[in-house]
C-alpha cells in the first residue's frame, strides 16, 4: 500500500491530459482532487497503529546489486509529513479549481502538481538514501516547472531558474554526503545507518558528510544564506506558493534534518551549525519581512523566518542525544517536540494566509500593501481567516501558534541555561535573539492584518469589483483556519497520534522514557515564557506604532550589498569570465591548437620520462655502420633540413621524394625487399600527386609570422625531435624479452609460403591487410567524390 501510495500521483498525472481531452466540460482539477483525498484517508487509517508503535514498511527491489532498493517506511516522522502533503494538497487543489480560470493551461498545472506530490511522498517515505535523492531532485524539478507556470513572464523564468540552481546544487552536495555515509557504513538504508551509528562517529568523513547533507537541507528549506530563492519563487500561481513554498517542499529540509538527527547528533557540530543557522534565518527573515510592500514577498520572508525557528528548535533538541540518557534529556528533547508541533502549525496558518492573499489578489487586483486597505467590510470572511492566521503566526492565544511559540521560548531558555559553553554569557544570546525575532514577527503579522483590511479604503487605486469570492474558494482557507483554532483547543490529539511516534524516530530507543512527558497545555501558570510572550505583544505594538519613524533603518543596507545582488553578480560574472576564458584559448587558429597538442606531448611524455628516470641507453648492442648507410644518412639529413629553406614548392616536393627514395634504399640495406619495392612505388605516386596538385594550388609563399611565434615554432620542433630521439634510444636499449618472430619462420609449414613478410600480411595477420585495403578503397572514393562533387548543386534541389 505504501509504495503504491507513492506511485499513485505519478500514474494519475499520466491520465490528466486524457481526462482533459475527453471531459472538456469538467474542470480537470476535480479529477486531480480525488488523488490526495484518497491518500489522506488511506494514511489516516494507519494512525492508531502508529500510535501503538507499529511501523509499516515495504520493499521493492530496484538495483539490488548496488544496494539501492525502493524501501518505503511509514513511521511517526513520515506520518506527519504525508498527512501534511496529502491533506494540504487536497485543500490546495480544491482552492486552485476556483482560483485558476479555464483559460489557463490546466493540464500542465495539475500534471506538475501531481508530479510534485508523488515526489514529495517519495522523499518522506523512502528509507533508501539514493531513492530519497531521486525524489528530492524530482521535487526540485517539479517546483521549477510550477514556479515558471506563467513562462511568458520574465520574472517567473528568473525565479524558477534561481530556485533550480540553488536547490539542485544543494541536492548534489547532499548526494555526495550520502555517498560518504555509504563508504563508512556500506549501506544506503537510513535505518541501518542509525543502527550502526557507532561506526561513523569520529571517522574523518563524518564532518564532511554532515556538512554536505546539511547543505542540501538548508538550500531546500531556504535557510540563511540560501533563502534568496524563496521570495523570487513567489511569481508562481498562489496555490503553488501555498502548497510548495509554505507547507511541503520547504519542509523537506526540515524532514531531512529530523531524520538524520540520530546519526549526526553525536557530534557537537550538528547542534551548533543547525541552531545558529536556524536562529540567523529566524532573525533575518522576520527583520526583512517588515520592509516588503508586496504581500506575497512578506509571506515568503515570514516563511523563511518560521522555517528558521523550526530548524533552530531541531538543533537545540539534538543536544539531548549528545548528553546521553539522563533525566534532563527529556527537558532538552522538548525542543524537538516543539519543532514538530510548530511544523504542523505553520503549515496550517501559512497555507491559509497564502490563500487569503490569493483571494485579495483576485478580487482587488493588486497585492501591493500601499494600495490596499479597508477591505474588512468588503471581504469579511477572508478578513476573519487572515486574522486567525496572522495572530497565530504572531503567537497569540487562542490560536495554535501561541502554543508552539511558548514551547519555543521554553526550549530557548532551557538551552540558554545549559552549561555547555565556555562562559555563561553566551547562553543569553539564544533567548535574546529569539525574543527579538518574535517581536519583528509580531510587527509584520500586524502589518498583514491592519494595512490590508483596516484603515481607509482606496477605491481609486484598485480596478476590480470588490465582493466576496465564490464559496468554493473559501472552503480551503476556512478549513485551515478552523484547524488553527482546533489545534489550540485539542493540542494533545495531535500530540498523541502524530508527534509522539515521531519523537521515537528522532530519539531511537527511548520510547518508554519519553512517552509520558510530552503533553501540551495552554496554561502552565506564570512561567518566564509567558512573560516573554506578554513582552513581545507589548513591545511589538509599540514598534508597530512607531514604524514610520524607524523604517529608515532599511535604507542603511543598500541594495547592491544584498545577497540577491551577490547571486546575480556571481551568475553574470561566472558567465562572462568563462566566456573570456574560452575565447582566450579557443582562437580558431589551427596552428595554435597544434601547438597546444605538441606542448602537452613534450611536457607530459618528456616530463614523465625524465622524472621517472626512464631515459637511459647504452649503445653497445648496435650494429656497425657501413659506408652506404653513412652516405644515405647524410643525404637525408641534408634533404630534410633543406626542405625548411626551400624557396619554391617544387624544391620542397623533390626534396621530400629524395627522402622517400633514400628510405627505400635503407630498406634495401636492412634486408627488406618488399618494403623497398612498395616504398619506391608509393613515393613515385605521391610525388606525382604533389606535382599534379601544383597545377591547382597557389604558389609557395613566404610565411609571415612574428619572430616570437617563429621562435616558439622552432623550439617546439626541436624539443619534439629530441624527445623522440631520447625515447627511441631508451626503448631500444631496454629490451625486456625476445621477439616473437621466430614463430613466423615456420611460414612454410603453417602457411605454405617462403616469403615471411607476405605470409604475415596474407595469413598470420590478414585482418590488418584487409582493413588496409578498405582504407585505400575509402580514400579512393573520397578522392573521387571530392573531385566530382560540386557543392553548388544543392541549391537546385532546394528549388525543386
Amino acid at each position, binding site marked *: 500500500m505504501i509504495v503504491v501510495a507513492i506511485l499513485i500521483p505519478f500514474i494519475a498525472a499520466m491520465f490528466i491530459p486524457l481526462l482533459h481531452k475527453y471531459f472538456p466540460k469538467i474542470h480537470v482539477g476535480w479529477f486531480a482532487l480525488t488523488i490526495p483525498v484518497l491518500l489522506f484517508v488511506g494514511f489516516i487509517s494507519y494512525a492508531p497503529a502508529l500510535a501503538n508503535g507499529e511501523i509499516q514498511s515495504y520493499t521493492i527491489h530496484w538495483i539490488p546489486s548496488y544496494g539501492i532498493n525502493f524501501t518505503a517506511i511509514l513511521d511517526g516522522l513520515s506520518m506527519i509529513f504525508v498527512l501534511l502533503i496529502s491533506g494540504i494538497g487536497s485543500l490546495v487543489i480544491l482552492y486552485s479549481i476556483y482560483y485558476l480560470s479555464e483559460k489557463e493551461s490546466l493540464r500542465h498545472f495539475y500534471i506538475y502538481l501531481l508530479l510534485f506530490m508523488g515526489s514529495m511522498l517519495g522523499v518522506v517515505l523512502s528509507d533508501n538514501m539514493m531513492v530519497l535523492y531521486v525524489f528530492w531532485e524530482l521535487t526540485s524539478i517539479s517546483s521549477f516547472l510550477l514556479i515558471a507556470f506563467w513562462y511568458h513572464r520574465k520574472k517567473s523564468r528568473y525565479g524558477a531558474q534561481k530556485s533550480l540552481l540553488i536547490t539542485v546544487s544543494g541536492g548534489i552536495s547532499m548526494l555526495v554526503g550520502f555517498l560518504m555515509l555509504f563508504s563508512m557504513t556500506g549501506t544506503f538504508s537510513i535505518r541501518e545507518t542509525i543502527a550502526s551509528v557507532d561506526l561513523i562517529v569520529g571517522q574523518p568523513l563524518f564532518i564532511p558528510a554532515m556538512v554536505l547533507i546539511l547543505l542540501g537541507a538548508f538550500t531546500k528549506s531556504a535557510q540563511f544564506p540560501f533563502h534568496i530563492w524563496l521570495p523570487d519563487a513567489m511569481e508562481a500561481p498562489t496555490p503553488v506558493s501555498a502548497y510548495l513554498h509554505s507547507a511541503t517542499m520547504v519542509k523537506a529540509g526540515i524532514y531531512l534534518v529530523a531524520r538524520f538527527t540520530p546519526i549526526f547528533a553525536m557530534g557537537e557540530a550538528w547542534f551548533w551549525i543547525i541552531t545558529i543557522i536556524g536562529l540567523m534565518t529566524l532573525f533575518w527573515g522576520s527583520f526583512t519581512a517588515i520592509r516588503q510592500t508586496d504581500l506575497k514577498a512578506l509571506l515568503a520572508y515570514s516563511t523563511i523566518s518560521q522555517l528558521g525557528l523550526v530548524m533552530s528548535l531541531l538543533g537545540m533538541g539534538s543536544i539531548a542525544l549528545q548528553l546521553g540518557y539522563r533525566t534532563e534529556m527529556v527537558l532538552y528533547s522538548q525542543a524537538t517536540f516543539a519543532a514538530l508541533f510548530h511544523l504542523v502549525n505553520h503549515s496550517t496558518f501559512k497555507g491559509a494566509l497564502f490563500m487569503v492573499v490569493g483571494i485579495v489578489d483576485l478580487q482587488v487586483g493588486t497585492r501591493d500593501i500601499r494600495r490596499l486597505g479597508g477591505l474588512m467590510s468588503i471581504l469579511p470572511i477572508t478578513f476573519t481567516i487572515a486574522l486567525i492566521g496572522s495572530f497565530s503566526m504572531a503567537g497569540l492565544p487562542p490560536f495554535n501558534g501561541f502554543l508552539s511559540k511558548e514551547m519555543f521560548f521554553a526550549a530557548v531558555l532551557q538551552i540558554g541555561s545549559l552549561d555547555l559553553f565556555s562562559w555563561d554569557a553566551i547562553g543569553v544570546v539564544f533567548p535574546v535573539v529569539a525574543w527579538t525575532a518574535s517581536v519583528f514577527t509580531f510587527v509584520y503579522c500586524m502589518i498583514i492584518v491592519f494595512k490590508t483590511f483596516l484603515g481607509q479604503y482606496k477605491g481609486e487605486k484598485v480596478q476590480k469589483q470588490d465582493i466576496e469570492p465564490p464559496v468554493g474558494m473559501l472552503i480551503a482557507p476556512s478549513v485551515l483556519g478552523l484547524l488553527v483554532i482546533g489545534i489550540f483547543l485539542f493540542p494533545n490529539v495531535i500530540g498523541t497520534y502524530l508527534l509522539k511516534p515521531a519523537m521515537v524516530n528522532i530519539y531511537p530507543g527511548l520510547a518508554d522514557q519519553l512517552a509520558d512527558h510530552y503533553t501540551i497545555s495552554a496554561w502552565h501558570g506564570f512561567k518566564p515564557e509567558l512573560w516573554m510572550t506578554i513582552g513581545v505583544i507589548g513591545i511589538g505594538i509599540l514598534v508597530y506604532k512607531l514604524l514610520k519613524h524607524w523604517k529608515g533603518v532599511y535604507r542603511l543596507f543598500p541594495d547592491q550589498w544584498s545577497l540577491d545582488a551577490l547571486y546575480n553578480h556571481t551568475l553574470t560574472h561566472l558567465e562572462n569570465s568563462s566566456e573570456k576564458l574560452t575565447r582566450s584559448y579557443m582562437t580558431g587558429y589551427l596552428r595554435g591548437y597544434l601547438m597546444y597538442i605538441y606542448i602537452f606531448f613534450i611536457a607530459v611524455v618528456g616530463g614523465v620520462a625524465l622524472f621517472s628516470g626512464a631515459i637511459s641507453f647504452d649503445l653497445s648492442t648496435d650494429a656497425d655502420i657501413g659506408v652506404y648507410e653513412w652516405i644515405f644518412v647524410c643525404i637525408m639529413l641534408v634533404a630534410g633540413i633543406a626542405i625548411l629553406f626551400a624557396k619554391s614548392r617544387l624544391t620542397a616536393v623533390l626534396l621530400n621524394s629524395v627522402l622517400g627514395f633514400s628510405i627505400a634504399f635503407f630498406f634495401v640495406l636492412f634486408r627488406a625487399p618488399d618494403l623497398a619495392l612498395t616504398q619506391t612505388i608509393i613515393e613515385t605516386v605521391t610525388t606525382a600527386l604533389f606535382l599534379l596538385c601544383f597545377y591547382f*594550388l597557389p604558389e609557395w609563399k613566404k610565411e609571415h609570422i612574428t619572430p616570437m611565434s617563429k621562435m616558439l615554432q622552432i623550439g617546439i620542433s626541436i624539443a619534439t625531435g629530441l624527445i623522440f630521439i631520447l625515447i627511441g634510444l631508451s626503448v631500444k636499449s631496454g629490451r625486456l624479452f625476445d621477439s616473437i*618472430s621466430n614463430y613466423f619462420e615456420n611460414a612454410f609449414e603453417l602457411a605454405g609460403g617462403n616469403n615471411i613478410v607476405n605470409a604475415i*600480411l596474407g595469413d598470420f595477420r590478414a585482418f590488418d591487410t584487409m582493413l588496409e585495403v578498405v582504407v585505400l578503397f575509402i580514400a579512393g572514393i573520397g578522392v573521387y567524390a571530392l573531385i566530382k562533387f560540386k557543392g553548388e548543386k544543392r541549391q537546385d534541389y532546394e528549388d525543386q
Partner: protein
Amino acid sequence: METLIIILAGVLVAVATYLILSKHILRIILGTAILSHAVHLLLMTMGGLKRGSTPILAENKVAYTDALPQALILTAIVISFAVTAFILVLAYRLYRKTGSDNLDALRGMDDE
C-alpha cells in the same frame, strides 16, 4: 647503426613538426609525409638492424631479420599514402572553394 637511424628519424620529426606548425596547407601536408617517413624508420629500427638475412625462407640460412616490423611498416606505408592523397585532394577542393590556402584566413568558416 640503430642510434644513428634514430637520430636521423628525430631530425625528420623536428622538420616535420616545424612544417606542420606552419600556416600553409601544402607545407602541412609535406610535414605529415615526412613524419610518416620518420615513423617508418623508427619502426624498422626497433626490430633491430642487420641481424640476419632477408626474411625469405631458403635452405642455407641460419637467422632471419625480424619480419614483423616489416609487415607493420608495409601496412603503414599504404595507409599514410592513402591519407596523403586524400588530404591533397581536400586541399585542392578547399582552394577551389575559398581561393586561399592560408589557414589563418580560413578561420571561423561556417560550413554551409
